[in-house]
């Protein structure tokens, strides 16, 4: 959620986070975690159609990055967009209803899980083509530059996208045009089932920044405060006119790639190692040093209540009208429109 805490970026860095702010980061990550768990269950129970790509484990990246963005800044997202959407401020009920395929969804039921987004909070419909956002985001940055606004665009993408031509064309173009963009790579080690190290002789995506003359940085993607700090610097630089940067967040998705993935391509030991670094557990432990456990438990309860309410809203919402499927492809319709 774009922060309402009044925290401001300093010129080249990012301000300290107080306990109340940390609690808010905790709440946001927990909301994403519980959202993913809920929607997966609802999917298995047949209430949510289509497919799902869950992001449990990667919450610190979405929340840390979006925390340093303004509402007027924009993000592009991927086929795994639930966390980005909630972190950027897409309404929880509208996001849930979209997954249910309801008329009240943030895309009216036309987008679904893989195209969650809402322009009113600065999120394009998520782009579910691997690398698809890496070129489109340059246009967002170019528009901000041409219109002389101080907006910034963030492109979320995965390690898999870094082997797409779009990654290279987008990064190079953003670099030569000095565009206000942060390329935020969520390296969760696997492109679907294929390990990143089998697809690249370069172990770190961030080192590819050097090829394009932009700043590259490896960040602990399992630590929301580290993610926030790195993103804060990159966003401040972009906003100040210093051009784009490439942040590589080392992270891990606890669930499978998509529904029905039993994760046979990786070991349970590896999974256990990464779960030791669970960003939500880490922040909760840190908060427990200064806060009463009761406050943390209350946050958990609030998150569950918000989700209960969102699910109920989605359930009660009307379906789209079937004929609405045939409109909306064009801003200006010329000639006959399709009829059922």
């Amino acid at each position, binding site marked *: 959620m774009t922060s309402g805490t009044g925290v401001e970026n300093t010129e080249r860095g990012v301000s300290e986070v107080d306990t109340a702010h940390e609690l808010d980061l905790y709440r946001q990550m927990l909301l994403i975690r519980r959202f993913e768990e809920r929607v997966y269950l609802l999917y298995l129970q047949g209430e949510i159609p289509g497919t799902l790509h869950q992001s449990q484990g990667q919450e610190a990246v979405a929340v840390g990055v979006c925390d340093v963005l303004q509402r007027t800044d924009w993000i592009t997202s991927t086929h795994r967009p639930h966390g980005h959407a909630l972190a950027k401020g897409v309404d929880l009920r509208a996001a849930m209803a979209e997954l249910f395929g309801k008329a009240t969804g943030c895309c009216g039921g036309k987008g679904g899980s893989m195209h969650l987004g809402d322009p009113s909070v600065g999120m394009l419909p998520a782009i579910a083509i691997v690398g698809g956002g890496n*070129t489109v985001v340059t*246009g967002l940055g170019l528009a901000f530059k041409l219109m002389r606004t101080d907006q910034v665009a963030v492109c979320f993408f995965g390690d898999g996208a870094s082997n797409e*031509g779009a990654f290279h064309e987008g990064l190079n*173009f953003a670099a030569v045009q000095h565009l206000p963009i942060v390329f935020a790579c969520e390296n969760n080690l696997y492109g679907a089932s294929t390990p990143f190290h089998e697809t690249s002789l370069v172990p770190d995506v961030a080192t590819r920044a050097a090829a394009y003359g932009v700043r590259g940085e490896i960040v602990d993607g399992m630590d929301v405060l580290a993610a926030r700090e790195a993103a804060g610097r990159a966003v401040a630089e972009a906003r100040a006119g210093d051009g784009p940067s490439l942040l590589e967040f080392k992270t891990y998705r606890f669930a499978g790639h998509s529904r029905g993935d039993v994760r046979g391509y990786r070991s349970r030991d590896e999974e256990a190692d990464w779960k030791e670094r669970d960003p939500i557990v880490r922040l909760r432990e840190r908060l427990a040093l200064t806060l009463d456990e009761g406050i943390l438990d209350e946050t958990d309860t609030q998150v569950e209540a918000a989700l209960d309410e969102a699910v109920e809203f989605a359930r009660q919402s009307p379906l789209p009208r079937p004929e609405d499927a045939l409109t*909306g492809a064009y801003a200006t319709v*010329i*000639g006959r429109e399709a009829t059922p």
Partner: protein
Amino acid sequence: MTVAAGPANGERRLTIAEALREAIAEEMRHDEKVFLIGEDVGVPGGFGGAFGVYLGLTEEFGHDRIIDTPISEKAIAGAAIGAALMGMRPIPDLQYADFLFECMDELVNQAAKMRYMSNGKLSVPMVLRCPVGTANRGAQHGQCPESYFVHVPGLKVVCVSDAYHAKGLLKSAVRDDDPVLFFEHKLLYGSKGREQAGGMDLTAHVPEEEYFFPIGKAVVKRAGTSVTVVATQMSLYRALAAAEELAHDGIECEVIDPLTLLPLDEETIFASVRKTGRLVIAHEDTLTGGWGAELAARVAEECLYSLQAPIRRAASHDVPLPVAPVMEQTVVPSQARIKAAIQRCCEG
């Protein structure tokens, strides 16, 4: 039905290249959100774009609005789409329509679908200019790929043949809120020092005063009663020449330039077919799956009982383009081939 007016004496005549340049300059003066982006579009001492359309524009508008790019079609298209999503009105340029295949994801998956996926909250107002057509450049610099895009809901596809409509349609396309692919034939630009289309006069009347020509509207280039011929670009001019020859045999062709291929002006075309009872379609795009096939299907659905003979098509043969002129002319629909198709249609 609109019948294009013939030129009057003393009127101002421009080439397509000049008309396009004028349209772009007018729209850039009208709206500061309009900008050009592409390879070699504004380099000082450069070409003014691959076909000279942009000559002089950088001097007036500066490099902020005439943006030279790396040879990165995906980035050019992506940058244009993203900027359009933010409210700008970009005119991206890829030099050759053959290079559209470099950025099919951006065009088909992003530009065409963002409005729909966002439930109407976003739009992509951009005009992608695409030079097409054989000119002894071979298999990868001479295709007419417009039919690929006619198949994509969310895009609009314009295909111009003369300076008057090129200017009026480009101005309409820039102000349209949807992504428009704007196909121009390389042999019809009339750029100085460039190939001309076999000695044809490549100028047309273009009024001094501002005008727009609507997207989705066809024009009847030649009125007739015997047979309807729908043709674009070089095929249009070959069809018009064939029509003059056939008039000596008593065959009066009604020749229509559809100008917009998506959406098609069914009203004008169907009215003509119902009058003549015969239809020939000519295009330089290849035959199989070409836009002529879609038009033939629609006429068969809506006007079958008006038809007195089978629909005939004259299109490029289903092979890649060769370079040797004698072979190239075998592949593209020549005037003789279009004439033969019309004659065959009129036999039944």
